[in-house]
C-alpha cells in the first residue's frame, strides 16, 4: 500500500487545507475513493477522455481487490483510462506524478507541474505563409466586384498571379464550388438504383399479399464502395502560392471520402488527417503551421515519399487506395530515390494522380529532375494552377 503514504504524511504535517482545483494530487485528499476521483480529474485536466463512467469503474476496481497491489491498481486504471498507445505512455508519468508527489518537494515548483506529451492549449501561431499575409486592407473593395464574368475570369487565373483582393473573392467562390463538387460526387455514386441483386427480403414480404407470387420485385444495388484516398501535399517554398488553395481543396475532398488520409511535406512528412477533420479552416491552418517548422522551405520529395512508405505504407496502403500527390516536382533531393519510392508506392496504390501547378504554364515540360523521375509511375498527370483545373479532378476521381 505504498501509494497511501502521502495521505498519512499529510495528516502528520498538518496541512489540511484541501485545494479543490483540478490539479489536486493524492496527498491533498482524505480517503482513497476521494483520491481516485481526484486522479481521474487530474487525468482529465491533462487531456485524457475520462468521464464519470471511467471514474466509477476505477472505484469498482478498488472494490474488486485490485487496490492491494500498486502495480495491478495502476494497470487496471491504465486499461480503463487509456485509449491509444500514446496515452499509455503519458499515463505512466501522470500516475507517478499524482500518487508519488511529496508535498515537501512541491512548495517551490507548485505552479510548474507539467507533463510532457500532454495536450497543451494551442498557442496562437503567427501565419506568414501561404501567400496570404495582409488580408484586412482590401476586404471591403473585394466584395463589390462580382458577377458571372468575374467568376469565370477568376476560375482561370493562376493562383500565383492573384491579387490580394482576388484571393478573397476566389476563396468564396472556391468554397461554393468545392461544396458542389463534393455533393455531385456523392450523387453520382448513388445513381444506378435499377440494377443490382433482387432483394429477397422485401420481395417475399410483399408477395404474401399476392398469395406468394413475387409480383413486385425489389432490388438491392451494391452499396457503392467508398473510395479511400491518400493525399500528399507539398508545402515547400516553391509551392507557397498554391498550398493554401490546395489545402482548402483537400478539406473539401474530406467531406466526400470518409477515409481520407492527408499529409503535408517539404523536408519532412507530417500527417494531418486528424487535424483537417476540424471544421474551421483557419484553425486547421494554425495547427498545421504549428506542427510544421519547415513550411515554405526546400523540398526533398524522394525522402518524404520514402518516409511515407516506411512509416505509413503498411497501414494506409491496404486495399489499394487512390494516392493524390500535389507538388510541383521541384526536388532538391536525389531524383533516383524519388523514382524508386514512386514505384514502390504505385505497386500498392490503385492509382497515383499527380497534380502539378506548373503544368498550367505555357510551354511547361516535366524536365525538372524530380518530376521526370516520378512520372513513369504516375497514372495520371494534371495541372492544378487554378480553380478550374482543381474542379476537373471531379471527373478523374469519379471514374476511379
Amino acid at each position, binding site marked *: 500500500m505504498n501509494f497511501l503514504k502521502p495521505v498519512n504524511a499529510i495528516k502528520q504535517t498538518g496541512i489540511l487545507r484541501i485545494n479543490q482545483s483540478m490539479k489536486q494530487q493524492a496527498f491533498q485528499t482524505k480517503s482513497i475513493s476521494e483520491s481516485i476521483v481526484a486522479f481521474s480529474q487530474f487525468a482529465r485536466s491533462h487531456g485524457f477522455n475520462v468521464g464519470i463512467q471511467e471514474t466509477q469503474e476505477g472505484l469498482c*476496481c478498488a472494490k474488486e481487490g485490485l487496490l492491494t497491489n500498486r502495480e495491478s491498481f495502476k494497470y487496471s486504471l491504465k486499461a480503463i483510462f487509456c485509449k491509444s498507445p500514446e496515452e*499509455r505512455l503519458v499515463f505512466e508519468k501522470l500516475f507517478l506524478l499524482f500518487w508519488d508527489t511529496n508535498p515537501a518537494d512541491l512548495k517551490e515548483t507548485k505552479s510548474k507541474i507539467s507533463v510532457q506529451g500532454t495536450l497543451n492549449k494551442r498557442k496562437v501561431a503567427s501565419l506568414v505563409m501561404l501567400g496570404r499575409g495582409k488580408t484586412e486592407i482590401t476586404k471591403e473593395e473585394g466584395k463589390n466586384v462580382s458577377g458571372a464574368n468575374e467568376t469565370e475570369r477568376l476560375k482561370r487565373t493562376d493562383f500565383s498571379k492573384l491579387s490580394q483582393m482576388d484571393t478573397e473573392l476566389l476563396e468564396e467562390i472556391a468554397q461554393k464550388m468545392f461544396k458542389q463538387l463534393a455533393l455531385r460526387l456523392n450523387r453520382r455514386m448513388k445513381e444506378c438504383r435499377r440494377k443490382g441483386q433482387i432483394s429477397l427480403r422485401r420481395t417475399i414480404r410483399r408477395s404474401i399479399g399476392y398469395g406468394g407470387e413475387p409480383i413486385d420485385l425489389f432490388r438491392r444495388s451494391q452499396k457503392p464502395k467508398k473510395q479511400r484516398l491518400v493525399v500528399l501535399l507539398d508545402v515547400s517554398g516553391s509551392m507557397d502560392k498554391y498550398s493554401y488553395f490546395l489545402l482548402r481543396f483537400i478539406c473539401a475532398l474530406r467531406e466526400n471520402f470518409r477515409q481520407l488520409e492527408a499529409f503535408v511535406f517539404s523536408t519532412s512528412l507530417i500527417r494531418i488527417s486528424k487535424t483537417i477533420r476540424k471544421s474551421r479552416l483557419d484553425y486547421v491552418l494554425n495547427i498545421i503551421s504549428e506542427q510544421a517548422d519547415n513550411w515554405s522551405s526546400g523540398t526533398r520529395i524522394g525522402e518524404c515519399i520514402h518516409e511515407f512508405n516506411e512509416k505509413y505504407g503498411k497501414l494506409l496502403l491496404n486495399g489499394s487506395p487512390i494516392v493524390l500527390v500535389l507538388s510541383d516536382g521541384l526536388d532538391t533531393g536525389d531524383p533516383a530515390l524519388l523514382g524508386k519510392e514512386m514505384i514502390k508506392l504505385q505497386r500498392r496504390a490503385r492509382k497515383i494522380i499527380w497534380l502539378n501547378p506548373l503544368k498550367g504554364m505555357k510551354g511547361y515540360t516535366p524536365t525538372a529532375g524530380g518530376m521526370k523521375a516520378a512520372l513513369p509511375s504516375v497514372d495520371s498527370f494534371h495541372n492544378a494552377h487554378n480553380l478550374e483545373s482543381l474542379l476537373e479532378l471531379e471527373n478523374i476521381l469519379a471514374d476511379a
Partner: protein
Amino acid sequence: MEVKKRNPVQKINSTTQIIEALEKYHYVADEEFATTLFLLLKLQKPLLLEGPPGVGKTEIALVLSQLLNTKLIRLQCYEGLDINSAVYEWNYQKQLLGIKLQEDTNLSVEEKEHHIFSNEYLLRRPLLQSIMEEEKAPVLLIDELDRSDEEFEAFLLELLSVFQISIPELGTIRAKYKPYVILTSNRTRELSDALKRRCLYHWIGYPSLEKEMLIVKKRVPGIEQHLLQQVVAHVQAFRQQKLAKTPGVSETIDWAESLIALGHREVNAKSFEQTLGSVLKSIEDINQAKVEFFETG
C-alpha cells in the same frame, strides 16, 4: 440489469489466478495484460486489443473461451460487412417454400406472415448468436474491426451498450447472458472515440527476447534450448530491420515448427535458406535477410 450473474468467473479472484490459468492453455501473459483480462471479466466491459499482426490478439479470445469453458463466437470484419452477414438474415429459400406450402391452407395473410417470419426461418449470424446463447455467456470475438465501415462501427456501439437486437418482424431480443466481448484492431484506421470509450484498452506489442522464448517453448514443447535461442534471436533481429512485413510471434512459432519438422537441430546456412519462407513473407525481405545472414556468418 436482468442479465444473470455468470458462474465460472466467480472462481477467478485475482490476476495471478488468470496468469496461471492462461499458462495451462499455453498462453503467456504479463501482469498488466492479466489485470486487463480480470477487469474484462469483472466489469463486463468489452476489451479493445490493438497491436501489430501476429502477437496473439485473436488467440487470447480462443484461450479465454477454453478457460471459461464456453463457446467462442467469431465475427471477422471486412470492408463492406453489413448487418445481413453480421447480425441476422431471413432464410429466403425456405420462406418461398413455406409460402408455397401454405397456399392451400385457410390461414389469413397475417397468420401466414407470422409463420414465415418465425424463428424457424431466421438465420443467426455471429452477433445475434452471441446474445441468444442459452447456457452461459459466450466469448464474442470481433476481429479486425478497423477493416469494417464506420456505419458498422456505429451499429456495434449500440449493441455493446445494451446487448439487445431488434428484428422488425420478431421484436426485440435481449441477451440472457451478456457475452464477453473482445475487439481487435491493427490500427489501419483510427476507431471512433465513442466506441473506444465503451471499451477497456490494451496494447500488445512485440514481446521481449525472454518472453518470446517462453512463448515459443510453450507452443512448441519439444524444442531444444539451443534451437529455441537461435530462432528467437533471429526473429528479434528481423524486427529491428526495415522489412516489408515484420514477423510476429506466430511466425516465430511457425518457423520453429518447420525447423523441427525438417529435422534441423540448429539454424545454419542450409536450414536458414530452406525455412526462411515460414517467417518472412516477401521476396525482398528474404533476400535482405539472406545477405545479412551470410555477411555476419
